[in-house]
């Protein structure tokens, strides 16, 4: 890994980057009631997960909330489905548009978010 270079470059970028992905509240905000609750997590969805979201949401690359980390997901869910979906499609901070899932449609993203936020398949 080009550590020093990356540090220096990242440091340069940090000076002009947007704010962090989400504020870190002292206590996680409650999730919006029923957000994504009806999204169906199928084998097909897990295939999409394994080819896209997994790239960042396992190790927390780019400050991505990790899969199953309810505390990290709670303030995001609290913003509601429309906000989360819009940020997913358009990209937000360091998350690229569509989160590398070029095949995903709206219902796919609903299911993927539900899964990552702790919903069982």
């Amino acid at each position, binding site marked *: 890994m080009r*550590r*020093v270079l990356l540090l*220096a470059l990242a440091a340069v970028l940090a000076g*002009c980057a947007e704010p962090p992905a989400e504020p870190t509240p002292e206590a996680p905000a409650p999730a919006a009631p029923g957000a994504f609750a009806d999204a169906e997590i199928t084998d097909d969805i897990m295939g999409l997960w394994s080819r896209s979201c997994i790239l960042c949401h396992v190790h927390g690359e*780019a400050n991505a909330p990790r899969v199953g980390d309810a505390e990290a997901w709670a303030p995001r869910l609290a913003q509601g489905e429309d906000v989360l979906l819009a940020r997913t499609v358009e990209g937000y901070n360091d998350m690229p548009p569509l989160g590398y899932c*070029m095949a*995903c449609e709206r219902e796919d993203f609903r299911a993927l978010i539900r899964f990552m936020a702790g919903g069982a398949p």
Partner: protein
Amino acid sequence: MTGRVRRSGFSRREWLAGSALAGLFGMARPTLGATPAATAPSLPWRNWSGGIVARPAGRFAPASEEALIDFLRATSGPVRPVGSGHSFTELVPTDGHLIVIDQLAGILDHDPATLQATMGGGARIGDLGAPLEALGQAMINLPDIDRQTLAGATATATHGTGIAHQSLSGYITGMRLVTADGGVLDLDAETDPDTFHAARVSLGALGVVTRIRMQNREPYRLKVRSWAQTTESVLETFDESAARHRHFEMFPLVHSDYALVLAIDETDEPVRNPPPEEDDGFGAAMAGWMGLPPGERRPHINAAASQIAPSEVVDTSHRALTNVRNSRFNEMEYSVPLHVGGECLREVLRTIAEREIDVVFPLEYRYVARDDTWLGMSSGDEDHAAISIHRTATEDYRAYFDAIEPIFLKYGGRPHWGKVHSLGHAELSALYPRFEDFRALRRRLDPDGRFLNAHLRHVFGEPPSEDSA
């Protein structure tokens, strides 16, 4: 059919029915995206940096080559293959169907004797290093970004660094191309050299590359050393340094006299690559300088850059050469003949300083070896120096890039196919001896222009179409 047709103006059921009917009765193939959408429109598509937007009629994600072949045989209308969306040019946008190739992945075959491996075109580069190593192979060189697909990276002649190392496309020894009518071409340098040399850097304009055979080597480790040095002193001995090291490049810091330098060499030393330390203070200082007018930054940046401590790590090649690029940006990169590389870089840096262009993102300067592809940016009889300029994704890059692009052109530069450029057919044809041959081949393989979009029509000098984005 094992694939996903999503939110199409032509539903999966309709497509299946149309496919069967067309096969049975010789009917005209259904045209994708030509009928009113019966369902919610497909989501917009954006590239990695977010600046390129498309509104495709639908997405098709084949789970197999057979599914892709069936799809192309059974349909007509515009399509564009998409990898990871890391191109900053409008290679992907279509109002037809996106063909998502990420299920055509994995290592399909390997030969321990030749150290070659066949991989799915949709495989992400970062997913190949470990499994190749387990098979006793490693890719000879790699680009910076590890999330591009192999087909996408090679379609744009994506490259790494090294005077003795070609772009990824240069290491392709065979490939499978599925063409607009669903035809299958297995290509290599012996059976159809012209098509092979064209298809290795195709801009996705000849069809969908479903599998690629690469010349690899035995696994190896690399020692990565980096330090800060004055840009001019690095340039004075750049050729010697490039010859001495397996990889050698620098990142000139704009509005300063310094560059961050990178030298990478093979080693037998054990892996030592601890997690990077957090901010060393350079970032905080740079954030402060951004409040200064560009013309006043030089002494401050020089003072801080001179304090950057050298670094050294050792790691397996695929971990040493590639990065996860978390901070999104837009980029313009041109390659110029090696002998004018330093002169071109100096003029770019001088222009940024004289015009006081308010940019903090460093440049990148590296060498790439010549290859025998038709459209590779380092193809031909001489090696090239590649020079990159960047802007963060949230900034408007146009004024900056517009100011620098004429300098690249003045030195005979060729644009990276996946990075911002303004060139069209007339300029590009003059830069590549085989450009017109490529145009003729493209017309032969895709006479109806299914794989063209507005950008590619501009690049290849084809008339605009009302049916393509």
